[in-house]
């Protein structure tokens, strides 16, 4: 006859093994889905025209609460919209890497850019850009200022910028910074100077 307390102990052990198993299976599924997401990013051929260029990126540094200019060598197409996209992608690449001066979620990227007229750029971002962005006035402000200033430095003639997330308007980036408005690049330039 097995003592009762021994039976309970075995039951508890089996339960713990079962829970651990479920957890491990879920964890593996999650990792697989991440891997698949990354694998699904198919490299696209560069747009016709363009060359390898040294461009200016205004990088946010959270620890210093500062924005600093850095150089990067990037393939820059001739088309203005594509230039803006590539410049922003080069900047976001610095943010999503680890360690990062201004950490952002994996998958934060630019889906597309559109021109409204000649001087207004609409930037369509991926969901992780906003969903995974750390919340906080300063952090959100630094993200927007660094992106807009990077565009202004590398693409001429853009006076207004508007952000979308997965093709839709969103009220704020992560609870604070306004994504409904059109940003004037001149105003953002003044703001960015306060951080330098």
């Amino acid at each position, binding site marked *: 006859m097995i003592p009762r307390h021994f039976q309970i102990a075995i039951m508890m052990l089996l339960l713990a093994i079962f829970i651990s198993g479920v957890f491990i299976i879920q964890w593996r599924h999650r990792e697989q889905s991440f891997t698949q997401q990354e694998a699904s990013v198919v490299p696209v051929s560069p747009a016709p025209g363009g060359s390898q260029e040294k461009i200016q990126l205004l990088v946010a540094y*959270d*620890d210093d*609460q500062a924005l600093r200019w850095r150089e990067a060598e990037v393939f820059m197409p001739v088309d203005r919209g594509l230039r803006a996209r590539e410049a922003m992608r080069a900047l976001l690449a610095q943010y999503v890497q680890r360690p990062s001066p201004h950490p952002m979620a994996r998958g934060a990227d630019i889906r597309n850019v559109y021109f409204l007229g000649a001087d207004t750029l609409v930037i369509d971002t991926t969901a992780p850009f906003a969903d995974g962005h*750390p*919340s*906080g*006035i*300063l*952090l959100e*402000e630094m993200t*927007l200022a660094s992106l807009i200033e990077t565009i202004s430095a590398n693409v001429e003639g853009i006076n*207004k910028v508007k952000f979308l997330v997965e093709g839709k*308007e969103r*009220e*704020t980036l992560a*609870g*604070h*910074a*306004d994504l*409904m*408005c*059109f*940003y*004037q690049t001149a*105003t953002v330039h003044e*703001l960015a100077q*306060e951080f330098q």
Partner: protein
Amino acid sequence: MRWTSRRFKALALTISTACVFAGGLKTGAYPQAPAASPSQQVAAPSASPADAAQNPAEKQKRMQTEFVVLIDASHGGDDRGVVFAPRIFEKDITLALARDLRRELEDRGIPVRLLRESDSNISLDRRAEIANEQRVGIYVALHAGFPGRGVRVYSPMASASIANKDANKDRFVPWESAQSASLERSKALAKTVSRELKKKNFDVSSLRAPLRPLNSILEPAIAVELSPEKGEIRSLESARRQNGVASAIASAIAQMRGQPGARP
């Protein structure tokens, strides 16, 4: 759809203003507040416990002339704001700071209302609507966040629509640029708050920010953000620190109240 909704709100705001003018009330550029309690989320004016005894006309007259500070404890409900630690949320820190600030203002005899008294969800647009409906004299949004240390004071940053002066030539004020007429006073308020915080030895930075819903508020509006001392999240919950910040903001508001251009 959202743009349409916003335009409609701006239009509704303006129409309500036009209706007030048509009715012959001396309300200036402010929309008419509803006769009943404008919002269930807005606390009754703390400086007027005898409201219930006043007749509606007196109450309306008082509302038109009273300088009221609206304190917005940001976030709330499902919106926790910044999560500093598993049980330390921005929404709770802002509410505690808001209560401190209310007490400090009351001590100085300044009428004050809290936009939320409890852990409730209020949308950003609704916050601006309440501020505009209540015709508050000053709107102060309270936040807490990373990175850095000390206190940051933000004034609204002009968006494209705010910067376009032609957009505000008539009474049809776009929702996103309702703040345009008060932008300079908001900056002055932010400057005064920063100065008072420095007097109390806080590490202060004064910035502009594209922060919702500041641009949709008619009257001077600022945001104050409390940051944790380096590596000390618990410093956000320090009653002494919160009292110091609240006291500095209240002193600044008391100064601004007496300046030319301020509402009575």
